[in-house]
């Protein structure tokens, strides 16, 4: 007599499904907690270093407001006004407390609230950076996949050559070339400036396309290279041979096996690229005349406006940390094996 496993009944199935859902939620929360646990100390240390820069710099608002040879009494008076005569740790405590409430202090040069100033610039920079990421991932994905699928043919070599070329062009060189070709010569896009989305989706898109393109080249190159390498490596794995033997179509093999495993390193690269993107925006905003976050950082740094620079650095750290969190979570979904330490 043969015994066969009876298929589970409907109520049993529901219970199993519920258990699975709880399990998945638990895993998600665990991943979230783990990522947070890593990034909290990162944030603390990074903000401390940022704050310590002021003491190292020896700059003070008195220099901006009074001139280089202001009398010691005048300097002391101005510094007291700004609370700079208190002990270092007390100042740090105050600053950090304010930080947690979203208050980044006041600018030494204009007296305006730094959170507001940064907020005004962030809209511009984040629009450009997001579009740059989307374009970079999409284009990098297409190029990397094409190169891997047509591995060792002329397609692969052409794509690799192209990717190498764009990876050595610094963002500002790309930006200048784009302006000269697409804006000035071909009149397809404006050469700079920014229009908020509220004033129209099309103008907004027109204005951020060229700067986003300039920033995206680096991302395209890295994503394409990583994806190609990991796809090529994944294709060599045993399970792919097994799948081919089992008679699965090439498309199925690609989308359901190879890609899943190959995507991991490419996504991880994105996390590393984001800080570079934030940094490169300093130059692209200069070339395209955008009044964004990077431009504000550059201007504040050049005028020695320390609280503004500190605010900028804190916000950029926050951006990078949040972005890495998101990438880690996506990675956890896409390649759970990585989370298990395999």
């Amino acid at each position, binding site marked *: 007599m043969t015994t066969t496993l009876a298929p589970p009944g409907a109520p049993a199935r529901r219970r199993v499904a519920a258990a699975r859902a709880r399990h998945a939620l638990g895993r998600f929360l665990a991943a979230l907690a783990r990522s947070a646990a*890593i*990034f909290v*100390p*990162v944030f603390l*240390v*990074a903000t401390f270093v940022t704050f310590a*820069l*002021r003491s*190292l*710099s020896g*700059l003070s608002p008195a220099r901006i407001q009074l001139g280089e040879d202001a009398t010691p009494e005048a300097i002391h008076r101005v510094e007291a006004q700004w609370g700079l005569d208190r002990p270092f740790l007390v100042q740090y405590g105050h600053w950090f407390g304010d930080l947690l409430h979203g208050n980044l202090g006041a600018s030494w040069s204009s007296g305006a609230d730094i959170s507001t100033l940064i907020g005004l610039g962030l809209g511009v920079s984040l629009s450009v950076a997001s579009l740059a990421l989307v374009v970079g991932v999409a284009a990098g994905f297409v190029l990397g996949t094409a190169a891997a699928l047509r591995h060792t043919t002329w397609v692969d070599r052409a794509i690799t050559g192209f990717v*190498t*070329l764009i*990876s*050595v*062009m*610094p*963002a*500002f*060189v790309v930006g*200048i070339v784009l302006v*000269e070709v697409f804006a000035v010569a071909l009149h397809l896009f404006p050469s700079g400036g920014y229009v908020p989305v509220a004033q129209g989706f099309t103008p907004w898109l027109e204005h951020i396309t060229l700067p986003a393109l300039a920033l995206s080249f680096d991302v395209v190159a890295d994503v394409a290279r990583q994806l190609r390498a990991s796809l090529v490596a994944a294709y060599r794995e045993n399970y792919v041979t097994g799948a081919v033997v089992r008679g699965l179509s090439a498309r199925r093999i690609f989308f359901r096996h190879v890609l899943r495993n190959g995507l991991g390193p490419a996504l991880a690269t994105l996390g*590393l690229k984001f*800080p*570079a*993107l*934030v*940094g*490169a925006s*300093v*130059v692209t905003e*200069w070339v395209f005349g955008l009044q964004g976050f*990077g431009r504000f*950082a*550059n201007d*504040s*740094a*050049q005028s*020695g406006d*320390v609280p503004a*620079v500190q605010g*900028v*650095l804190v916000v*950029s*750290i926050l951006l*990078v*940390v949040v972005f*890495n969190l998101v990438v880690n979570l996506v990675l956890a979904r896409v390649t759970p094996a990585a989370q298990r330490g395999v």
Partner: protein
Amino acid sequence: MVRRVLSLPTGRIAVAILTVIALLAVLGPLLAPRDPLATSAHTLAPGSGAHPLGTDYLGRDVLSRLLDGSRVSVLASLEVALTALVVGVVPGILSVYLGRVFEWVTLRVVDTLVALPFLLFAVAVIALLGNGITQAMLVTGVLVSPLFYRVSRAATLTVARSQYVEAALIAGASVGWAVRRHVWGKVLPPIAVALAQTVGVGFVIVSSLTFLGIGVQPPKPTWGGLLASDLGYLSYQPWAPLAPALLIMATVWASNLLADAIRDVSGEAGRALVAHRKVRAGRRGRTEPAPAGGTS
């Protein structure tokens, strides 16, 4: 390893370009036909016998300025690479041997450094700590060091867990001896790759900073600075930005090419590759052997 790298055509190209650039940095100011700071009345002149690349907006010889500017860029990128190397490799190797606490602390520090956007920090540091490229490059080196940390740590981990090292340690060898004898050889190739890559990164950063006018005071020429001022006179000299841009791009490309070449020839796969190429080259040189005559 150097010979192996040179056996690849990509390796040869990369080393050739980088050597030229390095020579420019060392000898450039001496090779310059004219004083890079000497102004003249012929402004914005096109290329000619006296001025092969023409003159700039103050009548200075462009070629001389390019040659003079190579020193700043090359020195700065070397600073970044070497700082990153020193700051990253030593903790990376030691993190395997000095216990869990040290390992955890260094891993967290590295995570922090990776989160900091280096161009932004470089700009901030230059502005706050003094307008000199050196400080900015030191800071950038520290911020880029995680790459070296991770690379050397990974390489050390694979070696440290191999049996012959364990055997040596059991037999009484000190950690230092084990590191010097076994780990170093295994760790060098990935570090060399990272070094080549970081030189390229350093170049881009230096060009970006000098493009923004930060770090070097006028009228000292730099490649990024030349590019920036060329933009102001595009209608008079449309091809002027090409020279500094191509120099920057060629150097970055050569560094990346060198990194790839080193990666290709290192490790088991690398040795196999080089041997394979040698055999293929040898076979091509000889004529086809005569077919074996007759069968018996």
